């Protein structure tokens, strides 16, 4: 007696397993870019505005397997993480960022600190990257699930 076993769909399963790593990598990368794009937009809206330079210095860069969010404004780290208690900073030090034609006056004082000629008040820090990241993280699981489903479909699953 001979029993013959036919396994159907093995070719398709083989194709799926062969293609899946590549399609998964591509889809996860797309979703990573989408996620970082979301964080970038959210951070740009949250960034405190005076000249708009801080918001305009937020951008993302992509390499083969990595997406990085960068903020190139020199004072971005202080704005995000703080620079101590509200204090005075000489206008001369900040001039390269504000532009030589700008004048600083009473409008630059924070409550509790009186205006001083030639000085700007550096206020309490206001994080903008971390809140944007937290807002984005809530969407990340769904993005990754959708990306995985697409990858499986593309691989022939």
């Amino acid at each position, binding site marked *: 007696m001979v029993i013959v076993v036919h396994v159907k769909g093995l070719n398709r399963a083989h194709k799926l397993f062969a293609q899946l790593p590549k399609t998964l990598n*591509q889809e996860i990368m*797309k979703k990573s*870019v*989408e996620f970082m*794009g*979301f964080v970038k*937009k*959210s951070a*740009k*809206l*949250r960034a405190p*505005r005076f000249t708009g330079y801080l918001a305009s210095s937020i951008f993302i860069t992509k390499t083969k397997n990595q997406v990085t969010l960068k903020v190139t404004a020199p004072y971005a780290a202080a704005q995000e993480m703080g620079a101590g208690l509200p204090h005075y900073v000489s206008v001369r030090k900040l001039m390269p960022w504000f532009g030589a034609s700008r004048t600083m006056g009473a409008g630059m004082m924070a409550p509790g600190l009186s205006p001083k000629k030639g000085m700007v008040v550096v206020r309490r820090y206001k994080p903008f990257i971390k809140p944007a990241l937290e*807002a*984005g993280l809530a*969407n990340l699981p*769904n*993005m990754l699930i*959708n990306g995985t489903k697409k990858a499986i479909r593309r691989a022939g699953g």
Partner: protein
Amino acid sequence: MTVSKATVVANIYKEFYDILVTATGFTTIIYPAWPEFDVDSKSNYPLIILGSPDISWDEFTITKKWVNGTIGIDIYTTAANTCDQYADRTIDKVETERDTLRTAGLSFVSLDSTTKDSVDRGKIRVHIKTITFSFKFIFTKTRTW
């Protein structure tokens, strides 16, 4: 207008723009990028930013390639329910105009994902909804053999 290999990005943008600008209430509020003027008061909203398409290539046949692309539409409003209404209008408009997009050469136009965010900007709260559509386009590739 038809999308061609030499004008993929520009014409896909134009196709989506031409469709969205005809939706109710969208005529004067669609921009290609964040507007130059200050948007710190309620009267500046709603705003719709139609982003540039992102594309990549895949092999289709020996002589043709797929362009797989996505295009993002950001809706900024000062009320959450208004944000949802504009999102509904956007999605409905693109869905009903799929035939127009097919005639232009774009196939498999589908809603890829939506995301929601809200940010306090000065004295106003801005609600943001991002809608991403995916599409495909086939072109004949340059022979190198």
